[in-house]
């Protein structure tokens, strides 16, 4: 019997209409665990690096994490892996919600799509019965709309639906895969799904998920549950409210948006409005949010309430999470939060990434103001800020007129438009739009995460170590008292010595080596979450989370029966980290790509930055180009990767 995992993947060839249930190799689980890890292994093995993201040979993999469907609190993430049409690298996109556990209960760990369907279809997975069904009646339908129609059609309110909207159908590079409560938004996974002709994947499962050591596992779960309860009653003092508790940033719960509205940039990520958050705005936004928010909601088996049901007169109800209430509002320079809730409803039905899409629109209007795009490009566009955004969103998801170019994201649109448009696509890393955050002093830890993260997206990399130093020694002492999460006691000292100003402050403190240590810890926790399918909101993202490097190995052992400890888990992390790096290196990623937007910090330190990158690469066992060395790969049982990179001349003999 297999424990925690089902031991079966579903292989669906859309070109031939072939469906197979394939038993997986338990040895691969030991080496890569599951979720992200085994996804990466499949992508490496089966999709050659020359493959175009929109080729039938590209795979689209939906995976439940290893602990999804077990009683582990917050283990509900679906990890979606393919090649991204936007970055051309591996798309590393994920969603919470209810889909992954349902897939496990249906008897599968992953669904792997290859080929392309000639017509629009949806896939209906009900335990052992799997069907490819016609979806022509769903063409053009919104993501929630699609889910509702399918539930009626199948006469089962308990199915879980992952669907694309119009944007995915039209292969918009920022198209998301929506699942009601949650979405996999980043890096264009919805476009690949649309390209394959899949409108939705519908799952219902009524089978058991087994545990290897039930008593031990339940004890760990009970500890986590108790910890969450206590931790929720004790927010961390001295940090902003959204960082004080657990969960993803509690944007649906909190009203106070002083930090975001005054520190994040408006428009095309340029304008700071330092006096924005007045008493009057606060009152108005509070009323709007409380009126729009019907209920705070969670994902599967999680007591947090990171999402909300949003219901306003004159529009369909939808569910929102995290930060999208502000991204459109701020990109469009609209001072009324009501707009944020309303346009996000459209965007959710269309199925687009709430970070990239507003930036693309702000970028377009900047190009218009600069005379690079013309009035002809915007014929029929209203002149008010709200109307402009609605109009352009409609063009983008339909790929109409200028929307066709903009649908490829700011990087590719700028290339196509030319005439100096590239300078306006200024907030990208690896061709992907970043948070609209512009700061003063370089932060060495964040510099490294921005540069080297394979997710290409900061919020999914950071966590664990405070974002800023505490002003007083007393506060620091208080903080480290119950900081059991550190993998090593030295991290406590790093924090104790970190000052707001002077010698031991950014950018030279944490020192280069300390910064590398901190980044490695933070990355490790995210990589472990993503193999297990545990939400970062209970683990790698917040300070002092219930899951950490000391209890995770016990969870894995008790769930799967695999003999796991901290060293072995670190080894799995390093293996997956290097495999994913190798996938991207094989796709052409090099040091030159690893840089934050030029204006991300006002004060930059080129020499220090070089030094940071060198030290990070060295720590990882990579060469100066960020390519894993043969020795590094061999030590991680990735000899086959080294061999391939050597054959391709990417690793050269005797060359580091």
């Amino acid at each position: 019997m297999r424990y925690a995992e089902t031991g079966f993947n579903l292989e669906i060839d859309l070109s031939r209409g072939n469906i197979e249930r394939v038993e997986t190799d338990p040895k691969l689980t030991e080496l890569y665990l599951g979720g992200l890890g085994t996804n990466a292994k499949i992508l490496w093995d089966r999709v050659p690096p020359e493959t175009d993201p929109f080729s039938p040979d590209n795979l689209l993999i939906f995976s439940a994490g290893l602990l999804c469907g077990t009683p582990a609190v917050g283990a509900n993430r679906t990890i979606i892996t393919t090649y991204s049409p936007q970055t051309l690298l591996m798309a590393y996109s994920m969603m919470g919600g209810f889909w992954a556990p349902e897939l496990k209960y249906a008897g599968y760990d992953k669904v792997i799509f290859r080929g392309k369907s000639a017509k629009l279809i949806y896939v209906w997975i009900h335990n052992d019965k799997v069907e490819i069904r016609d979806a022509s009646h769903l063409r053009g339908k919104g993501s929630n709309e699609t889910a509702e129609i399918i539930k009626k059609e199948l006469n089962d309110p308990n199915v879980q639906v992952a669907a694309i909207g119009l944007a995915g159908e039209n292969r918009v590079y920022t198209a998301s895969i929506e699942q009601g409560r949650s979405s996999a938004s980043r890096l264009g996974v919805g476009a690949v799904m649309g390209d394959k002709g899949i409108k939705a994947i519908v799952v219902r499962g009524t089978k058991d998920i087994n545990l290897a050591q039930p008593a031990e596992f339940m004890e760990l779960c009970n500890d986590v549950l108790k910890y969450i309860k206590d931790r929720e009653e004790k927010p961390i003092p001295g940090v902003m409210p959204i960082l004080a508790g657990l969960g993803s940033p509690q944007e649906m719960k909190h009203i106070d948006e002083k930090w975001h509205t005054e520190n994040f940039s408006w428009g095309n990520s340029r304008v700071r409005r330092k006096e924005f958050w007045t008493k009057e705005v606060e009152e108005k936004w509070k009323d709007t949010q409380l009126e729009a928010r019907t209920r705070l909601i969670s994902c599967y088996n999680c007591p947090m309430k990171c999402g909300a049901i949003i219901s306003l007169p004159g529009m369909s109800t939808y569910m929102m999470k995290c930060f999208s209430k502000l991204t459109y509002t701020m990109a469009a320079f609209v001072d009324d939060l009501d707009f944020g809730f309303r346009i996000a409803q459209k965007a959710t039905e269309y199925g687009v990434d709430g970070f990239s899409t507003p930036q693309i629109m702000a970028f377009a209007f900047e190009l218009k103001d600069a005379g690079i795009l013309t009035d002809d490009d915007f014929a029929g566009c209203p002149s008010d800020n709200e109307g402009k955004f609605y109009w352009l969103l409609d063009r983008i998801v339909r790929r109409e007129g200028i929307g066709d170019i903009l649908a490829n994201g700011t990087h590719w649109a700028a290339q196509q438009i030319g005439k100096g448009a590239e300078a306006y696509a200024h907030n990208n890393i690896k061709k992907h739009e970043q948070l609209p955050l512009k700061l003063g002093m370089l932060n060495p830890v964040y510099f490294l995460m921005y540069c080297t993260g394979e997710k290409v997206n900061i919020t999914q990399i950071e966590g664990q170590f405070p974002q800023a130093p505490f002003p007083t020694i007393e506060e620091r002492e208080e903080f480290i008292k119950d900081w059991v999460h550190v993998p090593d006691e030295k991290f406590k000292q790093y924090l104790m010595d970190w000052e707001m100003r002077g010698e031991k402050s950014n950018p030279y403190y944490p020192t280069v080596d300390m910064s590398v240590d901190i980044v490695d810890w933070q990355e490790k926790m995210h990589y472990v979450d993503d193999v297990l399918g545990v939400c970062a909101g209970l683990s790698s993202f917040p300070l002092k989370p219930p899951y950490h490097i000391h209890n995770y190995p016990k969870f894995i052992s008790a769930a799967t029966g695999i003999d796991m400890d901290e060293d072995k888990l670190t080894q799995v992390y390093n293996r997956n980290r290097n495999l994913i790096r190798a996938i991207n290196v094989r796709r052409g990623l090099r040091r030159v790509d690893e840089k934050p937007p030029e204006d991300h910090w006002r004060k930059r330190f080129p020499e220090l930055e070089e030094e940071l990158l060198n030290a990070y690469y060295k720590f990882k066992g990579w060469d100066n180009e960020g390519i894993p060395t043969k020795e590094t790969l061999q030590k991680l049982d990735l000899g086959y990767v080294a061999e391939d990179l050597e054959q391709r001349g990417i690793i050269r003999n005797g060359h580091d």
Partner: protein
Amino acid sequence: MATIKKKIKTIKIDLDKCNGCRACEMICSSFHASPKYSSNNPARSRIRMVHDPLKDVYLPVYAGEYAPAECTGRSKYVIDGKEYSECDFCRASCPSRDAFKEPDSKLPLKCDMCEGEEEPLCVKWCITGALTCEEREEEAEEPVRSVELDTGLEDLVNKYGLQQLQDTLNRISQAKKG
């Protein structure tokens, strides 16, 4: 006739506090797995979430008695503008739906308040406070114990074994209800 004090457990369900996570379903099926906690499967749960997020319907319902036939003439409830079918509130394991039946055998399931535990596990796992357990005392008549019945049944246990006797009683009671 003598009266005795009986402790009665009640689960209070506060729909406003429910975040829809379904931990209650998960832990119920896990607790009732054999061996205990060895597996879980919400489809086997004795508590089910009636769940329609876009209509803000969040309704945990516990499994009650087995009903051999479905009702006729069902009604609908509208509460705060939200429509519920009568079945939504119904605790019965009944032929009209899949809820509260073992997915393989279709045998009926019934909430037993997690006998032997400090509190029902669904309540323990619901840290949002939607499910809470209250205990109250009620006076009840002391049942009269029949020596004759005791002796008779003991004889039967000795002859056929406890398990067989229990199975037979179950079968008879199902047949009577049917």
